[in-house]
Protein backbone atom coordinates (compact mmCIF):
# COMPACT_ATOMS: atom_id res chain seq x y z
CA UNK A 1 0.00 0.00 0.00
CA UNK A 2 1.12 3.51 -0.71
CA UNK A 3 3.27 4.88 2.06
CA UNK A 4 2.13 8.31 0.96
CA UNK A 5 -1.11 7.51 2.80
CA UNK A 6 0.40 5.83 5.86
CA UNK A 7 -1.16 4.08 8.80
CA UNK A 8 -1.43 6.16 11.97
CA UNK A 9 1.55 5.55 14.23
CA UNK A 10 1.65 5.32 17.99
CA UNK A 11 4.30 5.17 20.68
CA UNK A 12 2.73 2.39 22.78
CA UNK A 13 4.43 3.12 26.11
CA UNK A 14 3.47 6.79 25.91
CA UNK A 15 -0.12 6.02 24.92
CA UNK A 16 -0.41 3.62 27.86
CA UNK A 17 0.95 6.22 30.28
CA UNK A 18 -1.60 8.79 29.07
CA UNK A 19 -4.52 6.34 29.15
CA UNK A 20 -3.65 4.94 32.60
CA UNK A 21 -3.46 8.51 33.94
CA UNK A 22 -6.80 9.25 32.29
CA UNK A 23 -8.51 6.22 33.87
CA UNK A 24 -7.13 7.02 37.33
CA UNK A 25 -8.19 10.64 37.11
CA UNK A 26 -11.68 9.77 35.91
CA UNK A 27 -12.09 7.28 38.74
CA UNK A 28 -10.80 9.66 41.39
CA UNK A 29 -12.95 12.50 40.14
CA UNK A 30 -16.06 10.32 39.99
CA UNK A 31 -15.35 8.73 43.38
CA UNK A 32 -15.07 5.11 42.22
CA UNK A 33 -12.37 2.46 42.62
CA UNK A 34 -13.77 -0.42 40.59
CA UNK A 35 -14.39 -1.07 36.91
CA UNK A 36 -16.50 -3.53 34.96
CA UNK A 37 -15.62 -4.55 31.42
CA UNK A 38 -17.53 -6.75 28.99
CA UNK A 39 -14.83 -9.19 27.89
CA UNK A 40 -15.41 -10.71 24.46
CA UNK A 41 -12.11 -12.45 23.83
CA UNK A 42 -11.19 -9.87 21.19
CA UNK A 43 -8.23 -7.51 21.24
CA UNK A 44 -10.22 -4.36 22.09
CA UNK A 45 -11.79 -5.52 25.33
CA UNK A 46 -8.60 -7.42 26.23
CA UNK A 47 -6.58 -4.22 25.83
CA UNK A 48 -9.09 -2.28 27.92
CA UNK A 49 -8.97 -4.98 30.62
CA UNK A 50 -5.17 -4.73 30.76
CA UNK A 51 -5.31 -0.92 30.90
CA UNK A 52 -7.97 -1.02 33.63
CA UNK A 53 -5.96 -3.49 35.67
CA UNK A 54 -2.82 -1.41 35.31
CA UNK A 55 -4.65 1.75 36.36
CA UNK A 56 -6.72 0.42 39.27
CA UNK A 57 -5.29 -3.01 40.07
CA UNK A 58 -6.63 -6.36 38.79
CA UNK A 59 -8.52 -6.86 42.05
CA UNK A 60 -10.65 -3.84 41.16
CA UNK A 61 -11.62 -5.17 37.74
CA UNK A 62 -14.61 -7.39 37.04
CA UNK A 63 -14.55 -8.96 33.57
CA UNK A 64 -17.96 -10.17 32.48
CA UNK A 65 -18.10 -12.83 29.74
CA UNK A 66 -21.48 -12.85 28.03
CA UNK A 67 -21.78 -15.58 25.42
CA UNK A 68 -24.82 -16.27 23.25
CA UNK A 69 -25.53 -19.84 22.17
CA UNK A 70 -23.90 -19.28 18.79
CA UNK A 71 -20.80 -17.54 20.16
CA UNK A 72 -17.61 -19.25 19.15
CA UNK A 73 -15.78 -21.41 21.66
CA UNK A 74 -12.57 -19.58 20.77
CA UNK A 75 -14.06 -16.35 22.14
CA UNK A 76 -14.53 -17.97 25.54
CA UNK A 77 -11.05 -19.53 25.48
CA UNK A 78 -9.45 -16.21 24.60
CA UNK A 79 -11.45 -14.29 27.21
CA UNK A 80 -10.21 -16.74 29.85
CA UNK A 81 -6.62 -16.25 28.64
CA UNK A 82 -7.03 -12.57 29.49
CA UNK A 83 -8.64 -13.28 32.86
CA UNK A 84 -5.91 -15.74 33.78
CA UNK A 85 -3.13 -13.42 32.64
CA UNK A 86 -4.53 -10.58 34.76
CA UNK A 87 -5.90 -12.49 37.74
CA UNK A 88 -8.97 -10.27 37.75
CA UNK A 89 -12.41 -11.31 38.92
CA UNK A 90 -14.72 -12.74 36.28
CA UNK A 91 -18.31 -13.80 35.78
CA UNK A 92 -20.00 -15.72 32.99
CA UNK A 93 -23.52 -14.62 32.11
CA UNK A 94 -25.17 -16.51 29.25
CA UNK A 95 -27.40 -14.00 27.45
CA UNK A 96 -29.23 -16.69 25.44
CA UNK A 97 -32.30 -16.99 27.70
CA UNK A 98 -32.50 -13.19 27.94
CA UNK A 99 -32.46 -12.47 24.22
CA UNK A 100 -34.31 -15.47 22.77
CA UNK A 101 -37.83 -14.15 23.56
CA UNK A 102 -36.94 -10.85 21.90
CA UNK A 103 -35.25 -12.47 18.91
CA UNK A 104 -38.36 -14.62 18.41
CA UNK A 105 -40.30 -11.41 17.77
CA UNK A 106 -37.90 -10.26 15.07
CA UNK A 107 -38.56 -11.27 11.53
CA UNK A 108 -37.25 -9.67 8.39
CA UNK A 109 -37.12 -10.86 4.83
CA UNK A 110 -33.70 -9.31 4.33
CA UNK A 111 -31.12 -11.58 6.03
CA UNK A 112 -28.59 -8.73 6.37
CA UNK A 113 -31.12 -6.49 8.10
CA UNK A 114 -32.09 -9.42 10.30
CA UNK A 115 -28.46 -9.95 11.32
CA UNK A 116 -28.12 -6.27 12.22
CA UNK A 117 -31.30 -6.26 14.30
CA UNK A 118 -30.36 -9.46 16.09
CA UNK A 119 -26.84 -8.18 16.68
CA UNK A 120 -28.20 -4.96 18.18
CA UNK A 121 -30.42 -6.90 20.57
CA UNK A 122 -27.42 -8.92 21.77
CA UNK A 123 -25.20 -5.86 22.13
CA UNK A 124 -27.90 -4.04 24.11
CA UNK A 125 -28.55 -7.05 26.31
CA UNK A 126 -24.86 -7.20 27.13
CA UNK A 127 -25.04 -3.50 28.02
CA UNK A 128 -27.89 -4.27 30.44
CA UNK A 129 -25.82 -6.99 32.07
CA UNK A 130 -22.62 -4.95 32.51
CA UNK A 131 -24.54 -1.95 33.84
CA UNK A 132 -26.38 -4.18 36.30
CA UNK A 133 -23.06 -5.69 37.41
CA UNK A 134 -21.55 -2.23 37.76
CA UNK A 135 -24.37 -1.26 40.14
CA UNK A 136 -23.92 -4.47 42.12
CA UNK A 137 -20.13 -4.13 42.22
CA UNK A 138 -20.05 -0.37 42.96
CA UNK A 139 -18.13 0.10 39.73
CA UNK A 140 -18.06 2.12 36.51
CA UNK A 141 -18.45 0.53 33.09
CA UNK A 142 -15.30 0.97 31.03
CA UNK A 143 -15.88 1.17 27.28
CA UNK A 144 -14.16 -0.85 24.57
CA UNK A 145 -14.97 1.16 21.42
CA UNK A 146 -11.96 2.20 19.36
CA UNK A 147 -11.55 5.20 17.07
CA UNK A 148 -12.08 3.25 13.84
CA UNK A 149 -15.41 1.96 15.12
CA UNK A 150 -16.48 5.33 16.48
CA UNK A 151 -15.73 7.13 13.22
CA UNK A 152 -17.39 4.47 11.06
CA UNK A 153 -20.29 4.08 13.49
CA UNK A 154 -19.48 0.39 13.59
CA UNK A 155 -21.09 -0.30 16.93
CA UNK A 156 -24.49 -0.39 18.59
CA UNK A 157 -25.79 2.83 20.12
CA UNK A 158 -26.70 2.11 23.77
CA UNK A 159 -25.07 -1.29 23.29
CA UNK A 160 -21.33 -1.82 23.08
CA UNK A 161 -20.92 1.96 22.70
CA UNK A 162 -22.40 2.60 26.17
CA UNK A 163 -19.80 3.30 28.85
CA UNK A 164 -18.77 5.73 31.59
CA UNK A 165 -15.37 6.32 30.01
CA UNK A 166 -13.72 5.48 26.68
CA UNK A 167 -10.02 4.74 27.20
CA UNK A 168 -9.26 3.50 23.66
CA UNK A 169 -11.69 5.80 21.84
CA UNK A 170 -8.81 7.73 20.26
CA UNK A 171 -6.84 4.67 19.14
CA UNK A 172 -7.32 3.27 15.65
CA UNK A 173 -7.77 -0.48 15.31
CA UNK A 174 -4.35 -0.85 13.71
CA UNK A 175 -2.73 1.09 16.57
CA UNK A 176 -4.34 -1.12 19.18
CA UNK A 177 -2.22 -4.12 18.35
CA UNK A 178 0.99 -2.27 19.23
CA UNK A 179 -0.53 -1.07 22.49
CA UNK A 180 -1.86 -4.57 23.27
CA UNK A 181 1.58 -6.08 22.64
CA UNK A 182 3.26 -3.54 24.92
CA UNK A 183 0.69 -4.34 27.64
CA UNK A 184 1.33 -8.08 27.40
CA UNK A 185 -2.08 -9.08 26.02
CA UNK A 186 -1.86 -12.81 25.09
CA UNK A 187 -0.56 -13.10 21.50
CA UNK A 188 -3.42 -15.44 20.48
CA UNK A 189 -5.85 -12.62 21.25
CA UNK A 190 -3.84 -10.05 19.33
CA UNK A 191 -3.40 -12.27 16.28
CA UNK A 192 -7.01 -13.40 15.82
CA UNK A 193 -9.31 -12.08 13.11
CA UNK A 194 -11.45 -9.23 14.46
CA UNK A 195 -15.08 -10.22 14.88
CA UNK A 196 -18.12 -9.02 16.80
CA UNK A 197 -19.10 -12.72 16.94
CA UNK A 198 -22.77 -11.79 16.66
CA UNK A 199 -23.41 -14.61 14.20
CA UNK A 200 -21.28 -17.63 13.25
CA UNK A 201 -18.43 -16.79 10.88
CA UNK A 202 -18.93 -13.01 11.13
CA UNK A 203 -15.78 -10.93 10.67
CA UNK A 204 -15.48 -7.15 10.92
CA UNK A 205 -13.56 -6.80 7.68
CA UNK A 206 -16.04 -8.90 5.69
CA UNK A 207 -18.97 -6.96 7.11
CA UNK A 208 -17.32 -3.60 6.45
CA UNK A 209 -16.13 -4.84 3.07
CA UNK A 210 -12.66 -3.35 3.59
CA UNK A 211 -9.56 -4.24 5.57
CA UNK A 212 -8.76 -2.36 8.77
CA UNK A 213 -5.42 -1.52 7.19
CA UNK A 214 -7.11 0.35 4.34
CA UNK A 215 -9.86 1.84 6.51
CA UNK A 216 -7.36 3.27 8.97
CA UNK A 217 -5.20 4.75 6.21
CA UNK A 218 -8.27 6.50 4.79
CA UNK A 219 -9.58 7.62 8.18
CA UNK A 220 -6.20 8.91 9.32
CA UNK A 221 -5.84 10.93 6.11
CA UNK A 222 -9.40 12.30 6.10
CA UNK A 223 -9.85 12.92 9.82
CA UNK A 224 -6.47 13.48 11.48
CA UNK A 225 -4.72 15.10 8.54
CA UNK A 226 -7.83 16.84 7.18
CA UNK A 227 -7.09 15.71 3.62
CA UNK A 228 -9.66 16.06 0.86
CA UNK A 229 -10.91 12.97 -0.95
CA UNK A 230 -8.92 14.01 -4.02
CA UNK A 231 -5.72 14.32 -2.06
CA UNK A 232 -6.23 10.84 -0.58
CA UNK A 233 -6.66 9.50 -4.10
CA UNK A 234 -3.51 11.31 -5.29
CA UNK A 235 -1.68 9.64 -2.40
CA UNK A 236 -2.67 6.26 -3.77
CA UNK A 237 -5.85 5.30 -1.90
CA UNK A 238 -8.68 3.86 -4.02
CA UNK A 239 -11.36 6.46 -4.73
CA UNK A 240 -14.27 4.13 -3.95
CA UNK A 241 -12.77 3.34 -0.54
CA UNK A 242 -12.13 6.97 0.36
CA UNK A 243 -15.57 8.12 -0.79
CA UNK A 244 -17.25 5.28 1.10
CA UNK A 245 -15.33 6.14 4.30
CA UNK A 246 -16.00 9.87 3.92
CA UNK A 247 -19.74 9.32 3.52
CA UNK A 248 -19.92 6.78 6.30
CA UNK A 249 -18.16 9.10 8.80
CA UNK A 250 -20.73 11.79 7.99
CA UNK A 251 -23.69 9.42 8.06
CA UNK A 252 -22.68 8.08 11.48
CA UNK A 253 -22.24 11.47 13.14
CA UNK A 254 -25.42 10.82 15.15
CA UNK A 255 -23.76 7.95 16.97
CA UNK A 256 -21.04 10.23 18.32
CA UNK A 257 -23.25 12.93 19.76
CA UNK A 258 -25.98 13.35 22.33
CA UNK A 259 -29.44 13.71 20.76
CA UNK A 260 -30.26 17.30 19.78
CA UNK A 261 -32.53 19.31 22.05
CA UNK A 262 -35.15 21.76 20.73
CA UNK A 263 -33.92 25.02 22.24
CA UNK A 264 -36.66 26.99 24.01
CA UNK A 265 -35.38 28.45 27.26
CA UNK A 266 -32.77 31.02 28.24
CA UNK A 267 -30.25 28.38 29.19
CA UNK A 268 -30.15 24.88 27.80
CA UNK A 269 -27.71 22.03 28.46
CA UNK A 270 -25.50 21.56 25.43
CA UNK A 271 -26.02 25.09 24.10
CA UNK A 272 -25.34 27.63 26.82
CA UNK A 273 -25.35 25.60 30.02
CA UNK A 274 -21.88 24.19 29.64
CA UNK A 275 -19.97 22.55 32.48
CA UNK A 276 -17.21 20.01 32.78
CA UNK A 277 -18.47 16.57 33.84
CA UNK A 278 -16.11 16.54 36.77
CA UNK A 279 -16.31 19.57 39.00
CA UNK A 280 -16.89 20.37 42.68
CA UNK A 281 -20.10 18.63 43.66
CA UNK A 282 -20.00 16.10 40.81
CA UNK A 283 -18.16 13.43 42.80
CA UNK A 284 -20.52 10.93 44.38
CA UNK A 285 -20.32 10.95 48.19
Amino acid at each position, binding site marked *: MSERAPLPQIEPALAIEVIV*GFIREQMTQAGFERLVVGLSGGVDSATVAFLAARAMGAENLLAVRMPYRTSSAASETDAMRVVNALGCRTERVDITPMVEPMLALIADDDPDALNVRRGNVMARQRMIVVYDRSAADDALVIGTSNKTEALLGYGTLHGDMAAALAPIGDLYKTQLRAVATELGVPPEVIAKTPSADLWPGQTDEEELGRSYDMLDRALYALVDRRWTVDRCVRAGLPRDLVEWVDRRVARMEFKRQLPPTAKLSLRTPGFDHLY*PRRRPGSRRE
Partner: protein
Amino acid sequence: MEYRIALAQMAPRLGDLDANLGLAGDRVRAAADEGAALLLLPELALTGYLLQDLVPEVAMRADDPRLLGIGAGAAGMLVAVGFVEETAEHRYCNSVALVRDGELIGLHRKVYLPTYGLFDEGRFTRGGDRIRTHDAGAPIGRIGLSVCEDFWHPSLPMLQAHDGASLLVNVAAGPSRAPGGPAGLAAIGGWHKMQDTYALLGTVPLAFCNRVGNEEGLTFWGGSRIVAADGSTVAQAPLWEEALVVGTLDTDDLRTARYGLPILADERLELVRRELDRIIGERAGIDGVSKD
Protein backbone atom coordinates in the same frame (compact mmCIF):
# COMPACT_ATOMS: atom_id res chain seq x y z
CA MET B 1 24.50 37.88 40.35
CA GLU B 2 22.85 34.49 40.64
CA TYR B 3 19.22 33.83 41.43
CA ARG B 4 17.08 30.73 41.56
CA ILE B 5 13.75 30.05 39.83
CA ALA B 6 11.40 27.26 40.91
CA LEU B 7 8.84 25.78 38.51
CA ALA B 8 5.89 24.09 40.20
CA GLN B 9 4.62 21.62 37.63
CA MET B 10 1.33 20.67 39.24
CA ALA B 11 -2.16 19.33 38.53
CA PRO B 12 -4.79 21.80 39.78
CA ARG B 13 -8.27 20.48 40.66
CA LEU B 14 -10.89 21.65 38.21
CA GLY B 15 -13.11 24.33 39.71
CA ASP B 16 -11.84 23.86 43.28
CA LEU B 17 -10.39 27.19 44.40
CA ASP B 18 -9.84 26.21 48.04
CA ALA B 19 -8.05 22.97 47.18
CA ASN B 20 -5.85 24.76 44.66
CA LEU B 21 -4.94 27.52 47.11
CA GLY B 22 -3.76 24.71 49.39
CA LEU B 23 -1.74 23.06 46.62
CA ALA B 24 -0.20 26.44 45.75
CA GLY B 25 0.72 27.01 49.42
CA ASP B 26 2.59 23.68 49.48
CA ARG B 27 4.62 24.75 46.43
CA VAL B 28 5.37 28.14 47.95
CA ARG B 29 6.88 26.50 51.03
CA ALA B 30 8.85 24.00 48.95
CA ALA B 31 10.21 26.76 46.69
CA ALA B 32 11.16 28.88 49.71
CA ASP B 33 13.09 25.90 51.10
CA GLU B 34 14.96 25.78 47.79
CA GLY B 35 15.90 29.45 48.16
CA ALA B 36 13.99 30.49 45.04
CA ALA B 37 13.72 34.19 44.21
CA LEU B 38 10.81 33.42 41.87
CA LEU B 39 8.25 30.62 41.82
CA LEU B 40 6.07 29.91 38.80
CA LEU B 41 2.70 28.20 39.15
CA PRO B 42 0.95 27.18 35.91
CA GLU B 43 -1.80 28.88 33.91
CA LEU B 44 -5.11 28.79 35.83
CA ALA B 45 -3.28 27.11 38.73
CA LEU B 46 -5.99 28.30 41.14
CA THR B 47 -8.94 27.07 39.07
CA GLY B 48 -8.09 24.32 36.57
CA TYR B 49 -8.45 24.74 32.83
CA LEU B 50 -11.67 23.40 31.25
CA LEU B 51 -13.94 25.64 33.29
CA GLN B 52 -16.64 26.56 30.77
CA ASP B 53 -19.52 28.13 32.76
CA LEU B 54 -17.63 27.73 36.03
CA VAL B 55 -15.63 30.85 35.07
CA PRO B 56 -17.67 33.37 37.11
CA GLU B 57 -17.79 30.97 40.06
CA VAL B 58 -14.01 30.80 40.44
CA ALA B 59 -13.10 34.33 39.32
CA MET B 60 -11.42 36.77 41.70
CA ARG B 61 -10.31 40.37 41.57
CA ALA B 62 -6.61 41.07 41.17
CA ASP B 63 -6.58 42.60 44.66
CA ASP B 64 -8.23 39.58 46.27
CA PRO B 65 -6.41 38.85 49.55
CA ARG B 66 -6.35 35.14 48.71
CA LEU B 67 -4.34 35.96 45.60
CA LEU B 68 -2.07 38.55 47.15
CA GLY B 69 -1.44 36.31 50.16
CA ILE B 70 -0.30 33.40 48.06
CA GLY B 71 3.37 33.87 48.93
CA ALA B 72 2.69 34.33 52.65
CA GLY B 73 5.41 32.63 54.63
CA ALA B 74 8.01 33.09 51.89
CA ALA B 75 9.22 36.64 52.53
CA GLY B 76 10.74 38.34 49.52
CA MET B 77 9.88 35.55 47.07
CA LEU B 78 8.06 36.46 43.85
CA VAL B 79 5.22 34.16 42.82
CA ALA B 80 3.68 34.11 39.36
CA VAL B 81 0.29 32.39 39.46
CA GLY B 82 -2.48 31.85 36.93
CA PHE B 83 -6.10 32.55 37.89
CA VAL B 84 -9.42 33.72 36.48
CA GLU B 85 -9.59 37.47 36.95
CA GLU B 86 -12.80 39.44 37.15
CA THR B 87 -12.05 43.06 36.34
CA ALA B 88 -13.84 46.06 37.82
CA GLU B 89 -15.91 46.08 34.61
CA HIS B 90 -16.78 42.36 35.13
CA ARG B 91 -14.61 41.20 32.30
CA TYR B 92 -13.39 37.66 32.87
CA CYS B 93 -9.77 37.14 31.91
CA ASN B 94 -7.27 34.31 31.96
CA SER B 95 -4.63 36.21 33.94
CA VAL B 96 -1.28 35.70 35.58
CA ALA B 97 -0.39 37.73 38.68
CA LEU B 98 3.09 38.44 39.96
CA VAL B 99 2.93 38.87 43.72
CA ARG B 100 5.48 39.40 46.48
CA ASP B 101 4.98 39.99 50.19
CA GLY B 102 1.25 40.53 49.71
CA GLU B 103 1.72 43.07 46.93
CA LEU B 104 0.76 42.87 43.26
CA ILE B 105 3.97 43.51 41.30
CA GLY B 106 2.57 42.76 37.85
CA LEU B 107 -0.46 41.44 36.01
CA HIS B 108 -0.86 40.06 32.50
CA ARG B 109 -4.17 39.16 30.89
CA LYS B 110 -3.81 36.44 28.27
CA VAL B 111 -4.02 38.28 24.97
CA TYR B 112 -4.42 35.35 22.58
CA LEU B 113 -7.25 33.04 23.63
CA PRO B 114 -7.15 29.95 21.42
CA THR B 115 -10.60 29.24 20.04
CA TYR B 116 -9.95 26.55 17.47
CA GLY B 117 -9.34 22.82 17.38
CA LEU B 118 -9.82 21.48 20.88
CA PHE B 119 -9.72 24.98 22.40
CA ASP B 120 -12.74 27.10 23.26
CA GLU B 121 -11.25 29.82 25.46
CA GLY B 122 -12.72 32.81 23.64
CA ARG B 123 -16.16 31.38 24.36
CA PHE B 124 -15.72 31.84 28.11
CA THR B 125 -13.04 34.50 28.72
CA ARG B 126 -12.04 37.81 27.15
CA GLY B 127 -8.60 38.68 25.84
CA GLY B 128 -6.22 41.16 27.43
CA ASP B 129 -5.06 44.27 25.58
CA ARG B 130 -1.70 45.07 27.14
CA ILE B 131 1.76 43.64 26.51
CA ARG B 132 4.07 45.04 29.18
CA THR B 133 6.99 44.23 31.45
CA HIS B 134 7.06 44.60 35.22
CA ASP B 135 9.90 45.75 37.44
CA ALA B 136 10.63 43.06 40.00
CA GLY B 137 13.77 44.78 41.33
CA ALA B 138 17.20 43.21 41.77
CA PRO B 139 18.38 40.66 40.93
CA ILE B 140 15.81 39.66 38.29
CA GLY B 141 14.97 43.10 36.92
CA ARG B 142 12.03 43.40 34.53
CA ILE B 143 9.77 40.42 33.91
CA GLY B 144 7.66 39.92 30.80
CA LEU B 145 4.64 37.78 31.69
CA SER B 146 2.60 35.76 29.22
CA VAL B 147 0.16 32.86 29.23
CA CYS B 148 0.50 29.76 27.03
CA GLU B 149 -0.95 30.64 23.57
CA ASP B 150 0.52 34.16 23.84
CA PHE B 151 3.84 32.50 23.03
CA TRP B 152 2.58 31.26 19.65
CA HIS B 153 2.65 34.93 18.61
CA PRO B 154 6.33 35.91 18.42
CA SER B 155 5.49 39.61 18.48
CA LEU B 156 4.60 39.27 22.16
CA PRO B 157 7.91 38.00 23.61
CA MET B 158 9.84 40.21 21.18
CA LEU B 159 7.91 43.31 22.32
CA GLN B 160 8.68 42.37 25.90
CA ALA B 161 12.36 41.90 25.08
CA HIS B 162 12.42 45.38 23.53
CA ASP B 163 10.51 46.71 26.52
CA GLY B 164 13.41 45.80 28.78
CA ALA B 165 12.52 42.31 29.93
CA SER B 166 15.47 40.60 31.58
CA LEU B 167 13.36 37.47 32.03
CA LEU B 168 10.44 36.09 30.03
CA VAL B 169 7.89 34.07 31.99
CA ASN B 170 5.27 31.92 30.34
CA VAL B 171 2.77 29.90 32.35
CA ALA B 172 0.79 27.29 30.47
CA ALA B 173 -1.88 24.60 30.44
CA GLY B 174 -0.79 22.74 27.34
CA PRO B 175 -2.82 19.64 26.45
CA SER B 176 -1.01 16.91 24.55
CA ARG B 177 -2.00 15.80 21.07
CA ALA B 178 -0.48 12.93 19.12
CA PRO B 179 2.13 12.26 21.81
CA GLY B 180 5.21 10.66 20.37
CA GLY B 181 4.25 11.76 16.87
CA PRO B 182 6.32 13.96 14.59
CA ALA B 183 7.10 17.42 15.98
CA GLY B 184 4.25 19.42 14.55
CA LEU B 185 3.09 22.79 15.81
CA ALA B 186 1.04 21.21 18.54
CA ALA B 187 3.73 18.81 19.66
CA ILE B 188 6.08 19.20 22.56
CA GLY B 189 9.09 19.58 20.28
CA GLY B 190 7.45 22.64 18.73
CA TRP B 191 7.22 24.32 22.13
CA HIS B 192 10.86 23.64 22.88
CA LYS B 193 12.05 24.97 19.54
CA MET B 194 10.03 28.11 20.04
CA GLN B 195 11.39 28.71 23.55
CA ASP B 196 14.98 28.19 22.50
CA THR B 197 14.43 30.59 19.62
CA TYR B 198 12.85 33.34 21.73
CA ALA B 199 15.66 33.16 24.28
CA LEU B 200 18.23 33.30 21.50
CA LEU B 201 16.58 36.07 19.44
CA GLY B 202 15.55 38.13 22.45
CA THR B 203 18.89 37.43 24.10
CA VAL B 204 16.84 36.95 27.23
CA PRO B 205 16.42 34.02 29.63
CA LEU B 206 13.04 32.38 29.80
CA ALA B 207 11.08 30.32 32.31
CA PHE B 208 8.13 28.16 31.28
CA CYS B 209 5.80 26.35 33.66
CA ASN B 210 3.27 23.96 32.15
CA ARG B 211 0.73 21.99 34.15
CA VAL B 212 0.21 18.23 34.26
CA GLY B 213 -2.78 16.03 35.07
CA ASN B 214 -5.94 15.15 33.23
CA GLU B 215 -9.22 17.00 32.82
CA GLU B 216 -12.17 15.53 30.94
CA GLY B 217 -9.90 13.40 28.81
CA LEU B 218 -7.27 16.07 28.08
CA THR B 219 -3.80 15.22 29.39
CA PHE B 220 -1.47 18.13 30.11
CA TRP B 221 2.14 17.36 29.31
CA GLY B 222 4.30 19.36 31.72
CA GLY B 223 7.86 19.58 30.46
CA SER B 224 8.46 22.90 32.24
CA ARG B 225 11.88 24.40 31.69
CA ILE B 226 14.30 27.26 32.11
CA VAL B 227 16.32 28.46 29.13
CA ALA B 228 19.35 30.76 29.34
CA ALA B 229 19.84 33.85 27.17
CA ASP B 230 22.02 31.82 24.77
CA GLY B 231 19.21 29.33 24.13
CA SER B 232 20.72 26.57 26.28
CA THR B 233 18.60 24.55 28.72
CA VAL B 234 19.20 25.35 32.39
CA ALA B 235 16.52 23.14 33.93
CA GLN B 236 14.06 20.65 32.50
CA ALA B 237 11.08 19.06 34.28
CA PRO B 238 9.81 15.61 33.32
CA LEU B 239 6.80 15.04 31.07
CA TRP B 240 3.37 14.15 32.50
CA GLU B 241 4.20 14.08 36.23
CA GLU B 242 4.18 16.61 39.03
CA ALA B 243 7.56 18.09 39.90
CA LEU B 244 9.23 21.07 41.50
CA VAL B 245 12.22 21.93 39.36
CA VAL B 246 14.76 24.57 40.32
CA GLY B 247 17.33 26.27 38.12
CA THR B 248 19.87 29.04 38.58
CA LEU B 249 20.35 32.01 36.28
CA ASP B 250 23.19 34.52 36.47
CA THR B 251 22.53 38.15 35.51
CA ASP B 252 26.11 38.32 34.20
CA ASP B 253 25.09 35.88 31.46
CA LEU B 254 22.58 38.39 30.12
CA ARG B 255 25.27 41.07 29.98
CA THR B 256 27.65 38.74 28.17
CA ALA B 257 25.01 37.48 25.76
CA ARG B 258 23.95 40.98 24.75
CA TYR B 259 27.50 42.15 24.14
CA GLY B 260 28.28 39.09 22.04
CA LEU B 261 25.02 39.18 20.13
CA PRO B 262 23.68 42.76 20.09
CA ILE B 263 20.69 41.95 17.85
CA LEU B 264 18.18 43.45 20.23
CA ALA B 265 19.98 46.81 20.23
CA ASP B 266 20.39 46.62 16.43
CA GLU B 267 16.68 46.10 15.79
CA ARG B 268 15.27 48.87 13.53
CA LEU B 269 12.12 49.49 15.56
CA GLU B 270 11.19 52.63 13.60
CA LEU B 271 11.41 50.60 10.39
CA VAL B 272 9.34 47.80 11.92
CA ARG B 273 6.75 50.35 12.99
CA ARG B 274 6.60 51.98 9.56
CA GLU B 275 6.12 48.67 7.81
CA LEU B 276 3.56 47.54 10.38
CA ASP B 277 1.62 50.77 9.88
CA ARG B 278 1.64 50.12 6.14
CA ILE B 279 0.49 46.50 6.50
CA ILE B 280 -2.25 47.44 8.95
CA GLY B 281 -3.40 50.22 6.64
CA GLU B 282 -3.53 47.93 3.63
CA ARG B 283 -5.41 45.24 5.52
CA ALA B 284 -7.93 47.76 6.79
CA GLY B 285 -8.31 49.39 3.35
CA ILE B 286 -7.21 52.81 4.58
CA ASP B 287 -6.88 55.28 1.68
CA GLY B 288 -3.46 56.51 0.80
CA VAL B 289 -1.65 53.38 1.94
CA SER B 290 -0.14 51.41 -0.90
CA LYS B 291 2.19 48.47 -1.26
CA ASP B 292 4.83 50.57 -3.01
